[in-house]
């Protein structure tokens, strides 16, 4: 395609070759994708560990919402035990959603989001670094907290393992899908209700399979099928959501 034209002189070809070489040299001077990814992980880790309130508040929210149900419905075990899977899952789902609200806003305000987008590196893996750290720091504690709240709701013992397993798988899908909403509402000042409106319809399949797995386990049936479907949803979200988030972030930055 780029064969030198018949009339081009030796000097022109030489100049073109020099330009080409400079380009490759410049390329190899840039850090590789792996180095950039690990730098992004380190940055996210430092930033999010230092924002302690943002990490603890969703956990408190989770516990508080769970406490509302015995007060609102009935404190007896006969009534609480059957609704415990649903209550725990709904509360955890809302807590994950609440933790996502301000995920990208600080980066937009201090300009680092724009730097990320113009850096020339693929955005999706870098977004994944952020989400991975966020999931590790905010969803994993949620999973660890859930059995204690389960005991308070008289969740049958055979449900606890599946509760943690389904939340472990499900919270990953919730984080990924919810981040699309968080990215879309990055430019909005405070978006607490808006992100809920956008994201909750997409959360319903995850909720269905998560509580389905728990109810199967409590009823003495194998929960594998539900967990497999939950894992399938999580993998699908893992494959598609980063691209949607990257596109949404581009849109948000273009509005600044």
């Amino acid at each position, binding site marked *: 395609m780029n064969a030198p034209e018949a009339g081009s002189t030796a000097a022109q070809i030489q100049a073109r070759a020099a330009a080409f070489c400079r380009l490759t040299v410049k390329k190899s001077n840039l850090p590789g994708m792996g180095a950039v990814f690990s730098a992004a992980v380190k940055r996210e880790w430092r930033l999010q560990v230092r924002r302690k309130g943002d990490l603890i508040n969703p956990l408190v929210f989770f516990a508080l919402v769970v406490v509302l149900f015995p007060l609102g419905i009935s404190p007896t075990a006969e009534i609480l035990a059957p609704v415990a899977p649903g209550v725990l899952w709904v509360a955890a789902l809302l807590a994950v959603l609440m933790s996502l609200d301000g995920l990208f806003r600080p980066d937009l305000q201090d300009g680092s989001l724009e730097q990320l987008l113009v850096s020339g590196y693929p955005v999706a893996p870098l977004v994944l670094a952020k989400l991975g750290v966020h999931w590790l720091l905010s969803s994993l504690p949620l999973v660890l907290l859930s059995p204690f709240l389960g005991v308070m709701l008289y969740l049958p013992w055979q449900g606890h393992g599946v509760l943690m397993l389904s939340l472990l798988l499900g919270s990953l899908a919730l984080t990924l899908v919810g981040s699309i909403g968080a990215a879309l509402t990055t*430019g909005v000042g405070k978006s607490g209700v808006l992100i809920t409106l956008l994201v909750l319809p997409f959360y319903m399949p995850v909720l*269905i399979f998560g509580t389905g797995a728990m109810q199967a386990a409590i009823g003495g049936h194998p929960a594998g099928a539900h967990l497999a*479907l939950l894992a399938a949803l999580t993998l699908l979200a893992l494959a598609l959501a980063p691209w949607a988030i990257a596109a949404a972030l581009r849109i948000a930055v273009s509005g600044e």
Partner: protein
Amino acid sequence: MWNWLKTLYHRLGSPKWFYQITGSWLPWFAGATLLFMSVGLVWGLAYAPMDYQQGNSFRIIYIHVPAAFLAQSVYMMMAVAGVVLLVWKMKMADVVAQALAPVGAAMTFIALVTGAIWGVPTWGTWWMWDARLTSMLILFFLYLGVIALREALKPQEVAARACALLAIVGVINIPIIKYSVDWWYTLHQPATFKLTEKPAMPASMWLPLLMMVLGFYALLGWSVLLRARAEILRREFKAGWVREILQRK
């Protein structure tokens, strides 16, 4: 034919041409709406035979079914308009998407309400957590989400692209939601109730239904064009041709 369609497509990308071309389409859509809907309504409500099990209450399907048709296809149209906007950066696609969203939400609402009204004589209850009803309700919330996002985001281009992306994400999710809700329904309610298998409808029943479906699609075209044209005038109010039109009237 292909070239003619391509030219039309490119012309519709310009606000001025869009306004002029669709102006000549409006009476056709209006006429088709009035014709199909009046024929379908009178035929369906007065002359179609009664259902041997449900009596006259089945006649609500002449509103319910077309509305449910539109509720689903309008979301698809919105996503297609979103793809056109994001890929070809065609601003008119966003005008159409913006016009489609409230119409789609209204159709979903009509489908839900007529379904509830039909449920009272047939099921004896206004609402059932049936898989279809539930996924329709979720679809309604999806529409409200798109509308709310457009309200919240400030520069128009940003709101347009964000809504397009949300509509595309929604289209990927609709089948997942649909199948998971089906799954959930079979999980929680093992066949407490089954719709009696109806025999294939006689032509005197489905012909008016077909009329109503065509009428609803014509109504969709009519109302979306009206909304889109008003939106064009609002967005392009600085353009000379808009001033001319406004001063002429």
